């Protein structure tokens, strides 16, 4: 080639330029191809990585592509499926489903409509079946023409199973797999309806294990759980498949024996007792015989509600226990029990009326400091009184059994909390300076109420009461029965500054170790250890050990039911921090106690 310039051959120069153009174009083409290849690889990796099946067809509905998930679900290799009609590869079970797919695919390819298939069954080439959900869309080219369709589908078999599991969880007890209380009530209601409508007789049995608490206390909760599972197996083995068994509470079981006469039910329960007699629960090196008390009630049209039925069964079970446990009691409605049950029902109405008419009244009993550690300032426990329309005043012991049995305790607790806080906040601002602690009783029912935490937090936030001034008293039994929930509630509210006291401490005591698990500020030593503390060395020892235990753990102690100066002296010598009792201070209306405190503070200030 001659050098460029005037003498250069133009054709030669053109050729050089054309070669350069070709080189640049080739380079750009190769770069574009590399980019396209990278994009394609990325797309393929993406398609291969996603958890959904992806299948594409051409404009005629013939399969063009399957990703690995689609290969697995259809059972077709991509190479084999290529060019096959969609219906052959994406095979839906049932003629209607197959026809619907064909119609929708046609609409998708012809009219550009998207398609959606919910919970259809896809049968793979190797005849496995999957519940799937699928969406499909047309594929368009740059000019908007439909050139095929893409189906994206996912295996929802697990989702379906999970839905079934969730449904099962909602109706069954987690530990034993038996029906739960709510579900059992539903079955019971249907049985009662049938009995009332058609006169059919069914039977209801209410069983309470006699040795459960012993196993729980001596071997721990794991052993208790295992005992419940073993008992479940025994019940299921002994009863017919058509009989329904439910776990109603801690160690309480319900049995609904459908279309079962009273003699047959009796026979079945006797067989159950025989099986129980043979049963031994072994845990580590211990072996337990397990007994049960069973209340049996024939379900007849005489009962109006399942609450009546459950109450009767519960009562019969209670009578069986009273008669020495490990036996069955058929419910017989004698005058006394009728009166009592009727009385409870009556209480329910009265409690509801009292709540609606705001006729509860708050009293309080002050708690006196004994030790140097005890805080100075007003410390009182809020007490509830029910004033009826005729002016009669009832103590809580009268109404609590009915309120607990018929689920009214949550409402009562909330009323008490709201009004106690209001009573405190109604006082002059200086009152809070002299208030050490306002202790409010809390039932086990509230402790297990999921909405309770939110309620208390809202009350505190709305009132502005310093949370440190509040203390909730819960019984030892309530705390232990549902330790996990108690931990959650106590820790959350402790985080705000609220304190807790364990009430009636010592009565249900089996182990102190759980005290490490919950943030408690006060142990209220049960009055039965205090009443005779002056004379009974065992009670004294008990109080002493509880007091020492509390102090070691940084917990202050309160002696309940203190009834004389000698007892006060004894408690003081043992180092108990506070004392409470009618001898020291009788319950008085809360407003009165607060006003007296305000007046005393003013007098002191003067």
């Amino acid at each position, binding site marked *: 080639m001659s050098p*460029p310039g005037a003498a250069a051959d133009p054709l030669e120069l053109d050729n050089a330029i054309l070669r350069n153009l070709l080189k640049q174009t080739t380079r750009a083409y190769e770069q574009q191809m590399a980019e396209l290849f990278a994009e394609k690889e990325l797309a393929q990796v993406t398609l291969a990585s996603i958890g959904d099946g992806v299948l594409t067809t051409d404009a005629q509905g013939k399969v063009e592509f399957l990703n690995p998930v689609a290969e697995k679900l259809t059972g077709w290799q991509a190479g084999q499926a290529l060019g096959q009609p969609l219906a052959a590869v994406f095979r839906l079970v049932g003629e209607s489903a197959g026809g619907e797919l064909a119609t929708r695919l046609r609409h998708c390819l012809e009219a550009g409509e998207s398609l959606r298939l919910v919970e259809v069954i896809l049968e793979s080439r190797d005849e496995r079946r999957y519940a799937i959900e699928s969406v499909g869309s047309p594929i368009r080219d740059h000019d908007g023409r439909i050139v095929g369709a893409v189906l994206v589908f996912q295996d929802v078999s697990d989702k379906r199973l999970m839905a079934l599991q969730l449904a099962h969880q909602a109706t069954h007890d987690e530990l034993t797999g038996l029906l739960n209380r709510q579900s059992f009530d539903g079955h019971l209601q249907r049985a009662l309806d049938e009995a009332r409508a058609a006169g059919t007789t069914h039977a209801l049995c209410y069983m309470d294990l006699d040795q459960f608490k012993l196993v729980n206390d001596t071997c721990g909760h794991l052993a208790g759980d295992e005992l419940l599972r073993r008992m479940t197996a025994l019940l299921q083995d002994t009863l017919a498949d058509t009989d329904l068994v439910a776990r109603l509470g801690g160690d309480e079981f319900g049995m609904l024996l459908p279309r079962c006469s009273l003699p047959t039910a009796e026979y079945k329960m006797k067989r159950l007792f025989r099986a129980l007699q043979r049963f031994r629960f072994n845990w580590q090196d211990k072996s337990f015989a397990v007994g049960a008390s069973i209340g049996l009630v024939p379900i007849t049209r005489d009962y109006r509600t399942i609450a009546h039925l459950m109450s009767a069964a519960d009562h019969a079970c209670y009578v069986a226990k009273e008669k020495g446990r490990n036996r069955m009691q058929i419910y017989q409605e004698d005058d006394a029990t009728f009166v009592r049950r009727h009385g409870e029902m009556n209480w329910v109405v009265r409690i509801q009326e009292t709540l609606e008419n705001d006729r509860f009244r708050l009293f309080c009993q002050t708690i006196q400091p004994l030790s140097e550690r005890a805080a100075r300032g007003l410390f009182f426990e809020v007490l509830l009184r029910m004033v009826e329309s005729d002016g009669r005043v009832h103590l809580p012991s009268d109404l609590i059994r009915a309120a607990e049995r018929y689920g009214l305790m949550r409402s009562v607790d909330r009323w008490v909390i709201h009004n106690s806080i209001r009573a405190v906040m109604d006082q002059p601002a200086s009152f809070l300076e002299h208030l050490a602690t306002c202790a409010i009783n809390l039932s086990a029912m509230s402790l297990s109420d999921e909405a309770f935490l939110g309620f208390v937090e809202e009350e505190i936030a709305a009132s502005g009461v310093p949370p440190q001034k509040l203390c909730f008293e819960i019984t030892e039994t309530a705390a232990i029965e549902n330790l996990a929930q108690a931990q959650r509630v106590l820790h959350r509210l402790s985080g705000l500054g609220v304190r807790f006291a364990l009430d009636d401490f010592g009565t249900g005591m089996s182990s102190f170790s759980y005290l490490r698990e919950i943030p408690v500020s006060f142990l209220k030593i049960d009055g039965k250890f205090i009443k005779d503390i002056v004379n009974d060395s065992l009670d004294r020892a008990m109080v002493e050990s509880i007091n020492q235990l509390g102090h070691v753990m940084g917990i202050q102690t309160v002696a309940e039911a203190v009834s004389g100066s000698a007892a006060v002296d004894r408690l003081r010598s043992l180092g108990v921090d506070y004392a409470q009792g009618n001898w020291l201070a009788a319950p008085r209306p809360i407003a009165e106690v607060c006003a007296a405190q305000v007046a005393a503070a003013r007098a002191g200030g003067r």
Partner: protein
Amino acid sequence: MRSQTVHLAAGHCPPEDLRAACAEPGRDPDLVLAFLPPGDELAPAVAALAAAWPDSLRVGCEAVTQFADAEMTSRGSIQLFWFDDPDHLPAVEVIEASHQEVPAAERIARLAGSFADADGVLLLSDGLRFPAEFLLDGLRDCLVDGSGDAGNSARRFPPVAGGLASHREPTSKECRDRRPARSAATGDQRSRGRQAEPRPAELAGARVFCGDEIFPSACVAVVFHGVEMRVEVVRGWEPASPIYRVDRAEGNVIFEIDGQPATDWYRRFFIAGDQLVPLPESSYRFPLLLEGPSPERQGLYRSMRFFDEPAGAVTFWGGVQPGDLVRLGMGNGDSLVRTAAELPRGAAPEAAMLYSCVGREAVLGDRAGQEVAAIHGALGGISLSGFFTHGEIGPTPRGRLAFYNLTAVLVLLAEARS
């Protein structure tokens, strides 16, 4: 309408030839369109036309190489028009300006106003000193196309076509200073323009004339009424390289393409062995094609005018904007002539005008005459005039007004029948 081309003898306009051309119609032409050889012969030729047809509308310009029917000539080309309807006599507007004294916005608006009811406009201007692209930008702002989808204030957009003439290659300094800023001239711009103004001896653009008057730097607009005017843009270039992006450009100068100086980018293509080929000559067959992204600029061509290696800049015969997507095209005599012969079908025209780029002339070389011959043949031998241009004016594929390089703009006229 009747049209006739007068084939002139060298050097002058013999009165007898002019008179003979009118023998058949029996009257003086209504419109005389003349493309005359540049230089001292212009004034006598314009005077000869005035003497022959004192009452006719006479317009034209200097041009180095003209077309007369199927011929390519340097003796000049005169096209005569007789309209059947006296109401179809065209109107003529002249707008004088230079790159240093750009036309005021009001003047452009007035010119656009005269296009209001027109059926077509022919623009002939100097291709060197007159700011043609500036004028076109201004007209485009004032007009809309026939669809009238702009506001009510916008005027209808009639077909507009034409050519820019020049009778010699400009100097490099002229190239750099060719295009002014888009906005109305300010004191600063005038000052800059004056600093950049070449010496008078270097200014030798093509003069236009109207009637007896000759204008050194102007544009003459022939505004047709009652005439159907069709415009065809003849291309003949094929895409030859990948598409690249213009990173930095100003006026008709590109500074950077694809992340490197424009000269380096050209070096990718225009080297033989390890030496740069002669530029811009070697680039005529490889023009710059504009591929967007603006639809208004898609399909435009730019011909290299100056390759300034030290500055890294490349100057073109038309404007380029930052962000333009460009590629090199390629063509040769065959592709240009073949494309010229492939005219779209349509109503039979009665007269034609061809404004073909000098860049095409360079590519065609010895075959330069084949283009006009092919077109004239395709048109069935009707009267045709025109010249080789330094820039063409015609519609874009979307109907708007554009400034082209390296195309042949063919204007076809037919008088409307009442």
